[in-house]
């Protein structure tokens, strides 16, 4: 399983395209900037290129190959219809700056998806342009900041629970806020009293994940929201775990002001080895006027409009009775159209009934795993009641010298992608398992058998786990060496 680098098999004379031999000098209006140096790009004919990438692909694990129990990442099946729809010429072969009369269908997709997101979350508005979850978080926090500034209220602090995703504090800091932790209760939930005690005129808002990263629903959510609002702040909810409640609970009913939605999680646009994603942000009535440009709006005549710099003020005056207080633009163009088409296709396929079933099956699968494992693995919050769509375990009881990492790598040899490791930080050697709703009982039963067996080996001190995986394309890789003297690009041999 050794596939050379393209730089090792290709040359600068081979090409996999047929283009005319143009005499570059013939028509040079490059104003003296014409390139003379070689770039150094390797080329392959199509047969070799297809083979190179096909072989490379086979060193990857993906949902199409097996179960991906990755907590807080919702790696579910990616329907192939979505891929087909995204490639329809009217979506894929359309320029973002075409005259709006030539893209009414594309705007219709954005507007229809926005409607679904608003209805599913019980919110008032949605900003569609953020490019991914973290970008959406930034959007939400900026909306809060814009709303506060609009009332002349400079606040400096965002409260974040210690169990939060790393993006939460990073985002708050990126937006110029100071980040303070909120402690957790022994049951794995936000400590309401501690939170209330910290609230005050300097707190712009809180960032909460619900269901939280321990896999638990925050039963005090409504109370938290009320307390924050009363103190003049806003509630940001991290939407990474929306899969647990979609169709069953609406964040808007819990007092949330802003929540990003990872279309590549709950709404199944493929993860693609790291992206692209899409992170629309649903907004409460209080925050809606402060969302970014551009946005779409359907007027009473049924026409979907694209509102961007060109028309924002005019449109707002005409339809909302005044200029909008948008906070600006977060990205060029209008957002991740390719993800919008996939997500809308997925929503229409499931429908309101199907999405409710999604949440129920996801939660059912997770609780089934929790209850099937708690006798062999430490499950710190198993006593707190049912989990939501993910089950959390810790490394308590492992033999000396064996770690969560070893167990995870052992799962690779069993044919599974490892669970999320060492997150959330509040549990020692945490393992967060999210089965999603697209796995069958048979698959989950097989996984439980394998998971139990590897857990027993970790408790019994099986040394072979320390060098796992043994049956993967590579054995453990030296990450320290990689970071100590980084080799980040190919260098031609001398």
């Amino acid at each position: 399983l050794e596939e050379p680098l393209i730089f090792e098999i290709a040359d600068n004379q081979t090409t996999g395209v047929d283009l005319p031999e143009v005499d570059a000098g013939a028509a040079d209006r490059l104003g003296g900037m014409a390139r003379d140096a070689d770039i150094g790009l390797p080329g392959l004919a199509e047969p070799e290129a297809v083979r190179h990438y096909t072989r490379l692909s086979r060193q990857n694990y993906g949902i199409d190959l097996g179960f991906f129990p990755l907590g807080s990442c919702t790696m579910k099946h990616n329907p192939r219809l979505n891929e087909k729809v995204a490639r329809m010429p009217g979506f894929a072969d359309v320029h973002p700056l075409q005259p709006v009369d030539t893209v009414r269908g594309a705007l219709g997709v954005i507007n229809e998806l926005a409607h679904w997101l608003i209805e599913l979350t019980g919110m008032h508005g949605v900003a569609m342009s953020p490019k991914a979850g973290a970008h959406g978080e930034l959007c939400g926090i900026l909306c809060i900041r814009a709303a506060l500034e609009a009332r002349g209220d400079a606040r400096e602090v965002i409260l974040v629970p210690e169990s939060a995703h790393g993006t939460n504090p990073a985002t708050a800091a990126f937006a110029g806020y100071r980040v303070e932790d909120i402690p957790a209760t022994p049951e794995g939930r936000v400590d309401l009293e501690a939170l209330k005690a910290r609230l005050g005129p300097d707190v712009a808002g809180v960032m909460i994940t619900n269901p939280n990263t321990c896999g638990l629903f925050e039963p005090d959510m409504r109370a938290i929201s009320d307390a924050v609002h009363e103190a003049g702040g806003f509630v940001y909810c991290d939407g990474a775990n929306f899969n647990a409640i979609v169709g069953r609970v609406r964040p808007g009913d819990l007092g949330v002001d802003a929540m990003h939605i990872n279309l590549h999680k709950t709404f199944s646009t493929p993860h693609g080895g790291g992206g692209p994603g899409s992170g629309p942000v649903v907004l409460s009535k209080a925050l809606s006027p402060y969302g970014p440009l551009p946005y779409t709006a359907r007027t009473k005549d049924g026409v979907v409009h694209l509102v961007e710099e060109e028309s924002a003020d005019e449109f707002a005056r005409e339809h909302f009775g005044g200029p909008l207080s948008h906070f600006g633009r977060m990205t060029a163009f209008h957002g991740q159209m390719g993800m919008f088409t996939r997500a809308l296709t997925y929503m229409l396929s499931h429908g309101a009934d199907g999405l409710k079933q999604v949440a129920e099956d996801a939660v059912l699968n997770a609780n089934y795993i929790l209850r099937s494992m708690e006798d062999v693995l430490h499950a710190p919050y198993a006593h707190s009641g049912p989990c939501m769509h993910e089950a959390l375990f810790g490394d308590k009881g492992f033999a000396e010298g064996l770690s969560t990492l070893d167990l995870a790598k052992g799962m690779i040899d069993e044919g599974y992608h490892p669970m999320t490791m060492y997150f959330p930080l509040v549990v020692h050697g945490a393992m967060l398992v999210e089965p999603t709703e697209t796995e069958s009982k048979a698959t989950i039963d097989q996984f439980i058998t394998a998971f139990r067996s590897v857990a027993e080996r970790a408790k019994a001190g099986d040394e072979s786990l320390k060098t796992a995986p043994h049956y993967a394309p590579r054995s453990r890789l030296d990450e320290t060496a990689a970071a100590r003297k980084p080799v980040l690009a190919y260098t031609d041999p001398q």
Partner: protein
Amino acid sequence: MRYLPLTDTDRSAMLDTIGASSVDDLFVDVPEVARLDGPIRDLPMHASEMAVEKHMRSLSKQNLAAADAAFFLGAGAYRHHVPASVDHIIQRGEFLTAYTPYQPEIAQGTLQMLFEFQSQVARLYGCAVANASMYDGSTACWEAVAMASRVARGKRRKVVLSGALHPHYAEVIKTMAKFTKDEIAGSEPSIQAQPDNEGLIARIDEDTSCVVVQYPDILGRLPDLEQIAEAAHAKGALLIAVNTEPVALGAIKSPGELGADIVVGEGQSIGVGLQFGGPYLGLFAVRDPKHVRQMPGRLCGETVDADGKRGFVLTLSTREQHIRREKATSNICTNSGLCALAFSVHMTLLGEKGLRQLAAENHRLACIAADKLAAVPGVTVLNDSFFNEFTILLDGDARQIVRDLADDKILAGVSLARLYPHVDGFTGGLLVAVTETTTEEDIETLCSALKEKLS
């Protein structure tokens, strides 16, 4: 419910194991006020694949696809022919449905591809190191500004923007600066044949963290980056070069060799397609390896495994949010991985030879278009020099003319008024982009239509 494998029999058996009488028992923590009593009203019920496909197709058909028009739009998004094998590769389940490669033993496919991608981008940009991608060109551009501020340790607060930076990119920077309190020294482009380098250089001072220059610029002109780099470096500022058309770099010098310190851009032209604006591909590279630890985003590096075999891992992640939380260089997590794959496959199919031929063909056709348009009464070509996009000035309202021509399936370009709605004097300006997908017949069609409109 074709994506849900559990049967009712399975569900009962699993509830038994859990010890719950119904799935409602699993949602006990939800406050009663927030429990929904059935599927959400106002949303439709589930539908067959056939019905959904039909609905989406009808929406698709309400759009005028570029292939069905004479097409001249650019302004940061270019239509190029993408080989069919690119789409085949990115639909391989092992690439499409893979996760972020945090488990390198079973993600070498993605990781080696990223290493190759980084190497290709670094060479194209004339830089030492490129990262594993950002969301798109505009956000990469903002991240570069933020990075420059980190390099200056927050001691320089002024960001000098070229007037000819893509207005959306400038907007993103201005938006973010409202919160970070950077001072933005920007301007609008001046409608002249050459970019105003002197004016730009005059705005650089000792408080400037960076100068941001687009190359080719929004009007299609080719600013002399070398001159600007020298001026910036003389004041201790970094030069950020922005490129929205990577194909151009097959014909013109790379920003790195001209002295840019950070090079960012939009990679959509290679492999990704138009897609109504997203997903696109943010490219990010630095000329000097010493700046690597201030870079945002993921980096893939070479290493060895326990058996001594070469392998690849995500590295230097102490810069990133999942390790460093509020001290991270960026909050970015998900990037444009699959678009990076598409870029890399397409670039491998092109190779040195193909990219240069592609660039030459683009330029050749653009020169033809410029000459033919210049011959149309009422049309003036602004640019002395350009790659595959240039500005023309019409004796008329370009925005309205673009809208009118669309009725005849001519997508004539991007009007300056669309990009700069609040600037006066841009009424007649129109950006015209020409690529290898443009035929000489398309050019004739545009010229005839303009001739008629302007007479």
